[in-house]
């Protein structure tokens, strides 16, 4: 106990005497803001892409075609069981070998779309399967075609059922955008690393970065909760 107290005091002492100088963050603020914008862009593009990929793959996974189900399942299992950082490396460094040269921003966003899309497909498949059978039958009785049934009756309900899990996936995507800095994309993490390399001082910038991500993740979570509350008024 005494030892722990001494250690705690020591840590406080270190923090108090550490030379934390946040003016470095102030100087870098315009660059960091530009980086935050890139983070936002990748998150938005990733969200749209991951939803499109997720919905397509989920639809294939509940379809009657055996080959379609097999391909879709293989895609989802492969991408969600391998690291997104390696996907990003692959898209940026290995694609040129087969003649595809993508700018870092595009390669990284594409890789994140495939990873988060694979996870979204798992969520949406569960959502599609959770829509009661009677809904399919009722929509069929109304004379809707198979596509109309899917688009107008089943998908909206599946989306509402999946919303909490999809929200978590969005927050995970937002945090994973920091990985794009590994191939030199100047998102907010990339900008911070550049500043650190020039100024040789890092703790202030990492603390600022941490605060940025935590606050944004909080805001996202709050927005998603509000959306859930709004949609639940219509019942499931």
């Amino acid at each position, binding site marked *: 106990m005494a030892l722990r107290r001494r250690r705690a005091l020591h840590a406080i002492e270190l923090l108090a005497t550490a030379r934390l100088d946040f003016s470095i963050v102030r100087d870098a603020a315009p660059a960091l803001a530009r980086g935050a914008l890139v983070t936002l862009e990748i998150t938005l593009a990733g969200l749209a892409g991951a939803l499109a990929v997720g919905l397509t793959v989920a639809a294939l996974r509940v379809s009657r075609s055996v080959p379609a189900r097999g391909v879709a399942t293989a895609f989802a299992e492969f991408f969600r069981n391998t690291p997104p950082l390696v996907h990003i490396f692959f898209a940026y460094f290995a694609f040129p*070998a087969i003649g595809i040269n993508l700018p870092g921003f595009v390669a990284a966003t594409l890789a994140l779309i495939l990873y988060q899309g694979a996870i979204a497909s798992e969520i949406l498949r569960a959502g599609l399967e959770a829509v009661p059978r009677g809904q399919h039958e009722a929509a069929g009785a109304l004379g809707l075609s198979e596509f109309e049934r899917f688009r107008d009756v089943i998908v909206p309900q599946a989306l509402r059922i999946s919303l909490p899990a999809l929200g978590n996936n969005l927050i995970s995507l937002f945090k994973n955008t920091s990985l794009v800095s590994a191939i030199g994309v100047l998102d907010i993490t990339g900008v911070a690393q550049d500043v650190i390399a020039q100024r040789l001082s890092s703790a202030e910038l990492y603390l600022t970065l941490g605060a940025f991500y935590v606050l944004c993740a909080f805001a996202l979570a709050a927005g998603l909760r509000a959306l859930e509350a709004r949609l639940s008024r219509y019942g499931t």
Partner: protein
Amino acid sequence: MTAAYVHALPGLLGKGLAATAGISAAAMGIALAGGFAIGLLRVFRNPFLNAAALVYVELLRGIPLLVLMFFVCFGLPQLGLQIEAVPAAVIALGLWGAANGAEIVRGALNSIPAGQSEAGAALGLGTLEIAATIVLPQALRRTVAPFMSLFTAIVESSSLAALIGVKEILETVRVDIENDASLWTPLLLTALLLYFAINYPISLLSQRFERSLS
């Protein structure tokens, strides 16, 4: 290229794979111990401990693991705390895993219907007895599948250690490629297959376990 690829394989399958496995296993140990400790704190009624646990979980789940790892490895030295790359990777992964583990434990404990503890109380059992003999055993079973998923997430995330210079699978690939750029595609594919070979069986097991509970 084929010869160079074959030449690079032993390092990847030997030291690289061993480092990934070792870092992931150590981090998983921290995630399990920390997850249970913090998860239990969150269901106790002590407001101070509860709030401390909540802040820990929310902060560590809100920060990208990459930023946390950089902070532990490069930021802490400025505050007087030097940590080598491998321990820094284990600490960052473990702290992050513990926050996610705490959410798993809390979710499992909350999923046990209140009627279970009420029934225990009606039988004349004390609070501790109810927790130890009725609630915990049921909750424990519900943590197994999510903890397996967390382990696959830790294995995936251990690749971030490459960015602080730990020679795990991805960093081993990067070093080999510096000498021969034509190795990018085959070596990265091999790395992907290695991660998949570790994670897919665990992921299947987790899905099977989850189904057996419902």
